[in-house]
């Protein structure tokens, strides 16, 4: 009887030592005993797949084709410039309705996509610059950039410029225009003069 209990206690200790506790960090993938229903032979996005030559389940577009819903037409709303030529459009195309919702969207998207580098104020003092990790970042209040047309800004977001990467692949067309609209508001906020303030409030500001 003593041996029986001893063996049992030993077995428990061994299992506990080998098994560890719940939630312990582990490098080994979880064991799946009967994985047939758990892992079905279907394509998951971004998963490796042997069927295709390049081993990817997420297929790249075939050259010369357009995916449904793609913004492929050579229209100002998609490219920021006039069809067929490189002349950028002056202002946000009429298809995009500039209203409060768009501005709020623009603010949110600017803070997500642009502020790490350009800063929430757009002054080029994002966190990457402040910690000194990034050398060159443009100040979006620079008169040269303020003078750019909306189409040109859209083009820079879409295709990148100089050391800035392209955000076209990550930010949908509507959001890019929303960012342009918000960026305009940011720039305006620093261009105000005393004359923009309604007369009754001017005295207050002077103080």
């Amino acid at each position, binding site marked *: 009887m003593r041996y029986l209990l001893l063996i049992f206690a030993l077995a428990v200790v061994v299992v506990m030592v080998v098994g560890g506790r719940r*939630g312990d960090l582990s490098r080994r993938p979880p064991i799946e005993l009967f994985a047939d229903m758990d892992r079905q032979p279907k394509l998951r996005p971004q998963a*490796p797949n042997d069927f295709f030559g390049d081993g990817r389940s997420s297929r790249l577009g075939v050259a010369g084709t357009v995916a449904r819903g793609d913004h492929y037409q050579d229209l100002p709303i998609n490219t920021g410039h006039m069809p067929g030529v490189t002349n950028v459009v002056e202002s946000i195309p009429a298809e995009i309705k500039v209203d409060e919702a768009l501005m709020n969207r623009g603010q949110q998207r600017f803070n*997500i996509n642009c502020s790490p*580098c350009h800063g929430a104020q757009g002054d080029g003092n994002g*966190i*990457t610059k402040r910690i000194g990790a990034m050398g*060159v970042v443009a100040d979006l209040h620079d008169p040269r950039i303020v003078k750019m047309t909306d189409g040109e800004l859209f083009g820079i977001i879409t295709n990148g410029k100089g050391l800035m990467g392209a955000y076209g692949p990550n930010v949908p067309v509507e959001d890019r225009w929303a960012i342009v609209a918000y960026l305009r508001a940011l720039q305006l906020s620093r261009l105000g003069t005393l004359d923009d303030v309604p007369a009754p409030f001017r005295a207050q500001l002077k103080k």
Partner: protein
Amino acid sequence: MSDIFPKWTNRLPLMMITGALLGGTGVTAGVWYYCTNKYANVGYMPVQPVAFSHAIHADQLGMDCRYCHNAVEKSWYSNIPTSTLCMNCHNQVLKDDPKLALVRESAQSGEPIHWVQIHKVPDYVFFNHSVHVNRGLSCVECHGQVNKMDEVHQAKSLNMTFCLDCHRDPAAHLRPLDKITDLDWQPKSEESQRADGAKFMHDWKVESLQNCSTCHR
């Protein structure tokens, strides 16, 4: 006769019963404790090909999850960013660091980095990120404090109880939509969470989905 059955065999029935009881209890306890997601999946932290740290990028740099996981609001699948996105910064930051060699190579060649997938529900489970994220559920509910992890590990069990606990009572988890990716956000108090939760349930017409066909279709 006594030579055939020695004296100790008298205790054999007792030993068999004790053994069976102990063994049965042991195996049951073992299965209960070990054969669940809470043991098998929680804490899974594979070695990633690049030592990418969410603690540096999401917490210290304060980047929004959606800068990289930009499909999470639109699709069922929350994408892993391409290496070109990393290069937007890393063409200047740590430009020649050996830790990023693979990222540079991958951005050049277009060959994706082979990140190891961590969170996985079985394929017979229908899951969708955008429904949850657009209904005021933060990443932290299902992924834990990713912004504090140097290497991502699975923090929640993601088993059926886990999903159902929330589906039975979403109000306890809903938060304002602009706090989705703010993993450190806490409700002011339990009562305020209750009140806000009930309001969100009403405003966004959130349902408590418990039919099997919600998740198994």
